[in-house]
């Protein structure tokens, strides 16, 4: 061992010495724990996919890919298709990402770029993180009793004035895409905001100095220097937020209207995969449960694909803006 020959070179009064055998054991122990944890996660994901896949297998062989492209969910006739739910899941999550992402990043900028005194900014950060602690049922109730009544006159006015635009082509009678997406946006806001805040706070002071030193205004510094510098972190925030929106269940089941139709209209009721699962499982029989398992597998696949794409985009951004190290 190398340390032996070093030992011999050592001056007798030197304090330097090799790590003790205890240090080495601890080191190996930590490494083993880290590896085990990582492996456990992989095993868990694989297990969940296999388990759901296994339960969905009968439905997969029975309905094939047509399950993903048809629109009927008829338990009596045993005809199942989840295109409307896939549409509703993606549409509501994209709307939420658009709104929540924009506001989340704006809030992160506001909290990190000297718009507020540091203490006040810390208070605001805590408040936003508290938003994440509100249970999803509460958001659902708030949506039903506060948001929908507030939204209805506005939505119906828009429908009256601009009903020709596909987005406003129906009126809002109660639950629907717009209230669902709005609540979803609020729910992903803390995720997007707090991860973006971290990304922006990590930018070293000297980068800010460099930007202002070139004679940028505050907005030029933020848009041209700070945001690109934090790009990979902000993208991570958006990916996580989108993932959260895709899987959100309770509030959506309460607000989206559980109607299996495909419409561009923001005010039409719709459905999502997670809401379908939540509302159908409790009373489902053998046959329907198999179909629901297939739907769950589809949701899992969508989430995994979104994360993979997000990772690829992040990697691209890191390569473009930061060093390849």
């Amino acid at each position, binding site marked *: 061992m190398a340390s032996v020959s070093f030992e011999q070179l050592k001056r007798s009064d030197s304090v330097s010495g090799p790590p003790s055998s205890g240090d080495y054991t601890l080191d190996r122990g930590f490494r083993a724990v880290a590896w085990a944890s990582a492996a456990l996660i992989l095993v868990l994901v694989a297990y969940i996919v296999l388990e759901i896949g296994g339960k969905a297998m009968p439905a997969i062989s029975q309905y094939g890919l047509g399950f993903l492209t048809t629109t009927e969910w008829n338990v009596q006739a045993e005809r199942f298709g989840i295109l409307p739910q896939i549409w509703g899941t993606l549409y509501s999550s994209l709307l939420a990402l658009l709104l929540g992402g924009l506001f989340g990043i704006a809030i992160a900028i506001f909290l990190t770029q000297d718009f507020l005194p540091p203490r006040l900014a810390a208070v605001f950060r805590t408040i936003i993180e508290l938003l994440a602690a509100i249970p999803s049922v509460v958001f659902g109730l708030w949506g039903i009793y506060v948001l929908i009544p507030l939204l209805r006159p506005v939505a119906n006015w828009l429908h009256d004035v601009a009903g020709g635009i596909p987005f406003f082509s129906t009126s809002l009678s109660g639950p629907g895409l717009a209230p669902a997406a709005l609540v979803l946006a609020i729910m992903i806001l803390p995720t997007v905001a707090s991860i973006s805040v971290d990304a922006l706070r990590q930018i070293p002071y000297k980068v800010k100095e*460099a930007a202002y030193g070139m004679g*940028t205004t505050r907005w030029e510094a933020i848009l041209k220097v700070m945001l690109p510098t934090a790009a990979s972190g902000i993208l991570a925030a958006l990916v996580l937020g989108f993932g959260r929106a895709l899987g959100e269940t309770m509030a959506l089941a309460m607000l989206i209207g559980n109607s299996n139709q495909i419409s561009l209209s923001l005010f039409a009721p719709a459905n999502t995969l997670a809401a379908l699962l939540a509302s159908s499982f409790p009373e489902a029989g053998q046959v329907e449960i198999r179909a629901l398992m297939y739907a769950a597998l589809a949701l899992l696949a969508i989430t995994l694909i979104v994360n993979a794409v997000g990772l690829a985009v992040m990697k691209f951004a890191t390569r473009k803006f930061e060093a390849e190290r």
Partner: protein
Amino acid sequence: MHANPKMTAAGASTAPAPVGNGVVMDCQLQKVFYGDFLAVRDSSLPLEKNKITGFIGPSGCGKSTVLRSLNRMNDLIPAFRFEGKVTYHGQDIYDKKVDPVVVRRYIGMVFQQPNPFAMSIYDNVAFGLRLNGFKGNLDERVEKALQGAACWNEVKDKLKNSGLSLSGGQQQRLCIARAIATEPDVLLMDEPCSALDPIATRRVEELMVELKENYTIALVTHNMQQAMRVADTTAFFGVDISQGSRTGYLVEMGPTKKVFEEPEQQLTREYVRGEFS
């Protein structure tokens, strides 16, 4: 914000015996605070056109502080407070009506630590040009700036790579290229060569000498030889510990040869001969 001949003359008249083409910037600093801490006091520094003014002095004496007061960089620090006057072509840059953003467009800066942006090498150099709405041949100006900063040969094949992928010394030269690309009127350089090898250091020194044909340069350096090689005028700062605190002040300023060979102050003599710190 541009030269007003009358006011330039007025600014020059308060400077101690200006020689050459007159004073572009005149810093009449009374007190500079970080919070309650008095960092620098009573220093008068005229920067002459087409000259390199070297700032020397022991660590912590406030060289960077003074330099960064010249383009209002220190405004970024909330606790910073400047008392006195800094005129640029006779215009007080600390005047309430003056926008520090505009000041920094004319008075460029190279920092003590390399700080390239997280973007490609090309975009780093083109940053200031684009910011100022430059309409000419961008490629040409980027190459010229990189040539000037002695790093063209090293980066010309990887202009699309991130500026952060370069070594520390290369990053610093990239930052110099970024600062000179817009050809600012005055260039403030805070130990620009502290991360460079002797060859690049020489190249940057040559660059400074070339640049002063058209610009005015203030250079902070710990390297006495460098000050002697490139500075026309040298300002020596010392630390006053008599008030129980460490406050920097200008001890002596004059032609470099005089400051190094026959300084007026005992403190300067000791410092340039390496007799203390």
